[in-house]
């Protein structure tokens, strides 16, 4: 009966109930939409980063990452074949890619521009690194002298697909060397630093340029990022001289710092939305208590304790909160469906490409938004009904209608 009574009371002042319902719904929509949007943004950049540059992680000699060496090749992988063989036998490993990295001057015959080169096995990388976003041409593939470069670098050199470039660098012995390359593609991965400096040639060509057969690192592509941890642990125990660096280390700017920044921002927005719900519901529930003072007095006279009345009013608030929060979730799901291909966003700091962000909604984030909305709203109702504790029965039943 108490539940029925509470439910019917919601319909008593329909306009106020609708406003309260709308406030909770908008608040929960805001919470969930922002969480989904920020999650989507992080997931998008991470996915982009994995499939355009870093893979799910890379194997390097222990202590090599993040350090500067006079002769870095002395710290490159001693036995890359053994590691690659081990990795290929592991479950969930889709592909392994040996790579070298070097600095070089690119010359078009008229001018030289400095760049950061990568020697890659073009034919094998083509399928996994499918988010390089070629705006002209395509991947190196199996072309021996093929080269791809970032849009900023290509613009600086004034080259297009099919043009020839000379890559000038230093061998590991310190002598000047050069290779010829033909542009097969110009990419725009979206990260300005990469698009302005990065280029790729075949690994074999890079090794000729550097005059070495060594490999600096091995990039790993998994079928699912979730398996990185177990792979990393297994590798560490099998090859103690090497370390496996995850995407969170390799792409710290987005995968870690970006996530921390967006989480902090999300928490600020959460406080704003929850504060909004709290104040609006407190005000609404306070008016309800004021309006129904005589009825509450009558209930008290008939033996209901203040706690009983609070229970009744909080139950009403809980129904509203559940309905409002559910509506907010439905609104978010509708927006999610309507924005099927993502919400077009201007480039984020450090990027130079418009990326459509798809809302990333997980059941845990939906449950969290529901819980936060319901708890905040119910807490606001509870706080506003505490005045019932001070209610004098006689004053209440005599209150003006």
């Amino acid at each position: 009966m108490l539940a029925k009574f509470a439910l019917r009371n919601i319909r008593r002042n329909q306009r106020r109930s609708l406003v309260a319902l709308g406030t909770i719904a908008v608040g929960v929509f805001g919470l969930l939409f922002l969480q989904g949007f920020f999650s989507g943004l992080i997931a998008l950049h991470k996915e982009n980063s994995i499939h355009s540059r870093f893979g799910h992680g890379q194997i390097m000699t222990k202590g090599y990452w993040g350090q500067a060496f006079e002769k870095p090749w002395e710290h490159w992988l001693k036995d890359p074949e053994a590691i690659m063989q081990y990795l290929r036998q592991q479950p969930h490993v889709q592909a392994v890619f040996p790579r070298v990295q070097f600095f070089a001057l690119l010359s078009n015959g008229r001018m030289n521009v400095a760049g950061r080169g990568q020697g890659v096995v073009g034919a094998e990388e083509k399928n996994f690194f499918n988010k390089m976003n070629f705006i002209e041409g395509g991947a190196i593939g199996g072309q021996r002298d093929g080269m791809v470069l970032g849009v900023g670098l290509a613009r600086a050199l004034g080259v297009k697909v099919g043009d020839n470039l000379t890559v000038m660098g230093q061998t590991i012995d310190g002598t000047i060397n050069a290779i010829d390359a033909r542009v097969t593609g110009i990419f725009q991965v979206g990260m300005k630093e990469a698009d302005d400096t990065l280029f790729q040639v075949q690994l074999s060509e890079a090794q000729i340029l550097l005059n070495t057969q060594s490999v600096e690192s091995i990039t790993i592509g998994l079928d699912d990022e979730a398996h990185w941890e177990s792979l990393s642990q297994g590798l560490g125990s099998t090859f103690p001289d090497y370390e496996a660096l995850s995407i969170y280390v390799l792409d710290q700017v987005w995968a870690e710092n970006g996530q921390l920044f967006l989480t902090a921002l999300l928490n600020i927005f959460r406080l704003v939305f929850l504060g909004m719900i709290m104040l609006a519901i407190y005000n609404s529930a306070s008016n309800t208590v004021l309006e129904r003072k005589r009825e509450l007095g009558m209930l008290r006279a008939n033996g209901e304790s203040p706690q009983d009345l609070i229970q009744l009013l909080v139950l009403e608030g809980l129904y509203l909160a559940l309905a409002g929060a559910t509506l907010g979730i439905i609104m978010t799901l509708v927006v999610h469906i309507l924005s099927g291909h993502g919400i077009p966003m201007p480039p984020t700091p450090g990027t130079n490409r418009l990326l459509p962000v798809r809302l990333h909604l997980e059941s845990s984030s939906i449950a969290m938004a529901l819980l936060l909305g319901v708890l905040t709203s119910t807490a606001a109702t509870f706080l506003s009904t505490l005045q019932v504790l001070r209610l004098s029965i006689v004053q209440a039943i005599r209150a003006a209608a």
Partner: protein
Amino acid sequence: MLYVGQQLSFAYGRDHKDQVLNSVDVEITRGEGICLTGPSGSGKSTLLHLLGLIEAPQDGQLLFLGKPVHLMKEDELNDLRRFHIGFVFQDFQLIDVLSVEENVEFFLTRQQIPKTLRKERVEQALQDLGLWEHRFKRPHELSGGQKQRVAVARALAKHPLVVVADEPTASLDSKTGRQLMENLKAIQEQRGVTLILASHDPMVLEFGLREIRLRDGRLNPPNKGTRYVG
């Protein structure tokens, strides 16, 4: 003895300066019909509130079923009101989102009475007051007289020891008021329920209730209200 009040006093306002009840003695036995009378401000409503256990005397002692009210805890008072006292208010105070039947049933559910027994009691109360055919209506669909009869049915269904009614006929026309009083008197006589009314309405005194007359917060005459009228 159901109530024994000795030297009951009560004052409103800051520092309790507005004395509304002053050293009133009152005794009420079970099954009695009582009418508190007196001009406005005489203290009859306050005495009614004390007897309804919704207000405690500031001075003097009130015993209910032999137990001093001022020594009772809040929970005990709530239970006494929940199980033993039924209220009828001047302005009916029905719950407008519940039907007639649900209004009557509401406090029975709060008494944790099993559903079958609850339904029996509701039907009995509504039949007694001629409201059975209106049981599905909401309060706004009823006349003033019907609303007040629902309020009486609600109080009665609790099977209380006492029904406390504050100006029950004040919002009704004389014919409806008389019918209501007939209902109340019948309930008092047939069920042995103690009936305590506060009223300005001289018609009420035609129903053989013991009058406790108050003036300026004192009994008038000062006699524990033993004078019978009607």
